């Protein structure tokens, strides 16, 4: 057998930290001195994926820039639960203006920093999927097109959760929301609709586009770090499960995000200057059912009147992603194991 290199750790490549790794190789989240950009006491639901994703991304950005980050936030859950007067959870300079204008506000912040000669201070703008793919889309496209020096992060929980779980252009087919009820012959959200923003971002030929999930911290942090190495418009799309909107158990947030990736439904990749540069291959492939079954928003596909036909269509979507991005590495593919 080939000898393993000694740098193997029980959990080195997947867990948050490891006492055996040198400090430089640990995730930011494993460090006691991490920023906690969004601090305790925020009013997010139990098990909120967005709160987690925001801390992951911003703490990583803080470390990558020597704590020189200002954040712009669109209206949405993240904004509402983090800054209800008189308490804020943000430990970094943070600005909230409106729902649809975060990219433009960030442009303004970046312009001001440039003109003030503060080139070391970097701008991160963040929004949910509604603020990104819907109401903020025009502003975002403008920010991309001008190649403004902003990292824009979309925390995608696939709907308008702040307002009570309505459909957004990021809501996946068949998912039940308050505006796509699970009734009629095609229950839930309609197939053939929706917006693939990472690919749209790539079409702008901006320096960096990447997707990530809260289930793979190492990957997410590496991407933030890479994004902060670059200048110009950069886009990071992070899948952040919403226990409320998805109807998942509060402890399943990371688990379900992992299944989104491992099923192929959420492709994890990165691209530079419009060209795909890497994909995170599936480690333990699972059928989409495993992912869907954990979520009440897909409950109508199972149970008393199951809809295997719809599940098959969703599986086909996953298969299409797998084919498009080459998500299955044939040489290392392992057998199906519960992830």
């Amino acid at each position: 057998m080939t000898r393993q290199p000694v740098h193997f750790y029980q959990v080195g490549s997947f867990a948050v930290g490891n006492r055996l790794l040198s400090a430089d190789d640990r995730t930011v989240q494993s460090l006691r001195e991490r920023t906690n950009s969004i601090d305790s006491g925020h009013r997010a639901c139990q098990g909120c994926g967005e709160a987690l994703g925001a801390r992951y991304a911003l703490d990583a950005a803080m470390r990558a820039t020597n704590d020189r980050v200002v954040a712009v936030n669109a209206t949405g859950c993240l904004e509402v639960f983090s800054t209800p007067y008189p308490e804020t959870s943000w430990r970094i300079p943070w600005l909230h203006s409106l729902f649809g204008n975060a990219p433009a506000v960030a442009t303004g912040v970046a312009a001001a920093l440039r003109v003030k000669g503060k080139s070391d201070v970097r701008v991160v703008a963040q929004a949910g999927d509604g603020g990104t793919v819907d109401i903020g889309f025009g502003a975002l496209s403008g920010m991309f097109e001008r190649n403004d020096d902003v990292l824009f992060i979309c925390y995608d929980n696939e709907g308008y959760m702040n307002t009570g779980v309505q459909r957004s252009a990021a809501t996946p087919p068949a998912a039940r929301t308050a505006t796509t009820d699970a009734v009629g012959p095609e229950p839930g959200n309609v197939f053939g609709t929706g917006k693939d923003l990472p690919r749209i971002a790539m079409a702008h030929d901006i320096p960096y586009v990447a997707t990530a999930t809260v289930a793979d911290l190492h990957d997410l942090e590496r991407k933030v770090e890479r994004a902060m190495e670059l200048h110009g418009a950069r886009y990071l799309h992070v899948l952040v499960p919403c226990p409320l909107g998805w109807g998942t158990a509060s402890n399943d947030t990371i688990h379900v995000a992992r299944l989104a990736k491992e099923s192929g439904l959420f492709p994890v990749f990165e691209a530079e200057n419009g060209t795909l540069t890497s994909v995170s291959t599936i480690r333990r492939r699972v059928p989409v059912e495993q992912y869907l079954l954990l979520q009440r928003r897909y409950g109508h596909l199972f149970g008393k009147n199951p809809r295997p036909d719809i599940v098959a269509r969703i599986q086909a979507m996953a298969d299409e992603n797998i084919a498009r991005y080459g998500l299955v590495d044939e040489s290392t593919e392992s057998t199906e194991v519960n992830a």
Partner: protein
Amino acid sequence: MLRQIEGSKAIAETVALCRPEVVCAYPISPQTHIIEAVGAMVKSGRLAQCEFINVESEFAAMSVAIGASATGARAYTATASQGLLFMLEAVFNASGLGLPIVMTLANRAIGAPINIWNDHSDAMAVRDAGWIQLFAETNQEAADLHVQAFRLAEELSVPVMVCMDGFILTHAVEGVDMLDQETVDAFLPPYEPRQVLDVDDPVSIGAMVGPEAFEEVRYLAYLRQRDALERIPEIAREFTQLTGRESGGLIRSYRTDDAEIIVVALGSVLGTIKDAVDIRRDAGERIGVVGITAFRPFPSEAVRAALAQARQVVVLEKSFSTGFGGVLSTDVAMSMRDLDFDLRTVIAGLGGRAITRRSLEDMLKRANDDELEPLTFLDLDHDAVERERERMRKVRRSGPSAENLLRDRAAFSSLPRGGGA
């Protein structure tokens, strides 16, 4: 230096003297010449230390200004009409956040029907947006007001909108005494933000405020506008001391000392009114004019004092509240509470309809003869209206009456649609 210069150009050059650091541009008539000129100055390097950003919408323009201002940069933009409405959410937001952005509003009508010409509908639509709104009578005043606007905005942390009549002023080439850099620098200190995104002193700007504090936030904003009522004339006086020129202030009276009838108006039409008043004065009528420079905050006390002895007050407005009438009139009426006087509202100049001296003279004569209706539409084509109403009586069909009216008016292609047409 006195120069014969297009209004927009004068504004652009004056804004440049104010050392703006971020200027956002989105084209909409009739403000385009302003931002084009600023853009050219930035591009050529004549205006250094300034980021000129071509954005994809007015909404983005104001949003970029918000971001820049919150980061401590002096931010400027310009818009008009539909553009103002498109950025409306951000307009409210800028004032709510207390960001001292200065914006030129090249006043223009709001559609439908789409209309690019001047009136004051846009400014009036945002009168409650929390901005200070200053109206310029001439291009000289428009230019001067911008310098004062930055000073005022930054002192009070309130955004300021300088309103100037679209085309009538923006596109007019006339003499403007241009300030020099030294004078502007002496008048306008560098921007010291009240709150700023600073990595060394982080704060959260733009919190969600619930019922427990929202009313207080709004009341504080009201108090700041009250403060502005003090500061606007003080700053104008300082400006006069520095330049020897009277610009700005709250209101300006013309021949009101013994006036029985006083016309109240905003903006460039004041010039034409003054010409008309002079003529009526020559005819022995005791008529005066009060021009309001500061529309928000509304200088109620000054207006009340200036109008106190008038028998009749005629408010001439380039906008109106459909379903009610005068907009400015309401503010004037509130200011004149408990006083014995007649209030007349004259709606004129909508959508660029020329306000001619002759029509004004006629209107003033009728006012003097107490013949003016409480609500008068100047130079209204009553025949066209009647024909349309007659048709509507016959055919109960909804739809745009504008087209019918236009079809009616055979004079459609003839001359001149005039100083707004």
